[in-house]
């Protein structure tokens, strides 16, 4: 818990990857996390059933923004089949930090929005 704010997470928070709306996208979804007031929208473009490009916009805490940054980078090139199989547990291990029960909502927000995209 003490090393939640490791440099890698903070860098993703300060300069998130794939931040911004896509000009052309096939699908998008937006969710609010009423617990924190986080607000996240993800845009996805597919090619041959795989993620060709992805972007997100939103406001949130360091954990939710870093998760979105890391997740959107990870899923590029992945097929829809691979994404369906990607679980909450996979998301938490991708994030690589130990999050408490209350912060799991933040860590999993991006994944929930992404899953909602298809």
């Amino acid at each position, binding site marked *: 818990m003490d090393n939640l*704010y490791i440099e890698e997470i903070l860098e993703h928070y300060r300069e998130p990857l794939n931040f911004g709306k896509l000009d052309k996208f096939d699908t998008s979804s937006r969710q609010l996390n*009423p617990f*924190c*007031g986080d*607000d996240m929208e993800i845009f996805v473009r597919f090619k041959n059933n795989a993620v060709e490009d992805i972007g997100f916009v939103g*406001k949130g*805490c*360091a954990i939710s923004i870093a998760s979105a940054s890391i997740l959107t980078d990870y899923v590029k090139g992945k097929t829809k089949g691979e994404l369906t199989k990607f679980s909450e547990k996979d998301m938490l291990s991708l994030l690589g930090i130990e999050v408490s029960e209350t*912060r799991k909502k933040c860590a999993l927000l991006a994944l929930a929005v992404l899953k909602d995209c298809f």
Partner: protein
Amino acid sequence: MKKDFPIFKNKINGKKLIYLDSAATSQKPQVVIDAILEFYKTYNANVKRGLYPIAEKATEKIGKVRQEVAKFINAINPEEIIFVRNTTEAINLVAYLVSHNIKREEGIITSTMEHHSNFVPWQQLALKKNADFLVLDIDENGFLDLDSGIKNYELRIKSAKIFAVAHVSNVLGTINPIKDIIKKVKEINPNILVLVDAAQSVPHLKVDVQDLGCDFLAFSGHKMMAGTGIGVLYGKKHLLNNMQPFMFGGEMIREVNIENTTFADLPHKYEAGTPDIAGIVSLGAAIEYLNSTGIENIQKHDNRLIKYALQKMEKIEGINIYGPRDLDRRSGVISFNINGVHPHDIAQVLGNMGICIRAGHHCAMPLHKRLGIPASARASFYLYNDEEDVDYLIKGIKEVKNIFSLI
């Protein structure tokens, strides 16, 4: 003062406990914990039914605490004190009572600064009854803006059934001039019922229901050092007498026939089932502790601490502090944000240092929308806090800025 509270004797994860979340719930002094223990160890029995000594002692104790509560808020009659679970239950109970005799064209008034407990029950009642729902705004200092309300909505105030309003805001710390507000509203509409949400005021300042002139007043024991699960609804006797009970069952009846039932007198009419006896005992002990400390001294102490804290916080760059600047009209609550950092990250960094503050919307989403922010961080003080706690808070905020490279 901390020495009276055993929780501060222990280290939590190897760190000293810096508890700055008393607006959520308060810590308990040893005397309250002892009173609960003593009840369970020496006179645990159900009340009213038993004819043996410990049942009589428990029953007598409840009556005594009811008197103490009445005295504490200067109610005329102990029968006007109804024991409930918490503020939320007390307000919902009043909403239920009102729902039976609200007439068509009669509206409901509340404000943007309310805790959800004093907002959602009224909004839902209005929706159910298709009644006019007027939400009064706040001014730029965080006080209820009654004057604009009266100017713009006099007719709606004239035709309202009930006005439900917070005495002290759990986010802004605003101490509303509630006596004056009630007077003005009743001048416009003498028949309006006024409910005061006193969850944040009864633990921190002198509240006198007769002086305020309210019809109902609600508060929670757990915010004033009693146990969780005990709260109080004060209601004027003639109003409570003329309303229908909410829950039916044991303890609240006079006579039950196959065809019908007559109900018990106040306050039992509204207290169906076995009460939280240990909770009531703890409330008695908490009030005794509050009386021996002196509620005026607590108010002065809270005030000294927020002055000390605000003076230091205002010097921190990139911090936004909400609520009244007139510190004599502000209770021991400070909500704030740091530019570029989500309040949850503030609370988490502080939490890792052993400093307990709260982050989120504090059950006041309409107020946060009104302030134009999704969430805030909140530090709140009570009689066991001191300047050293504030120094820790400042150190914590600086650490947040450090971690997020904002220096």
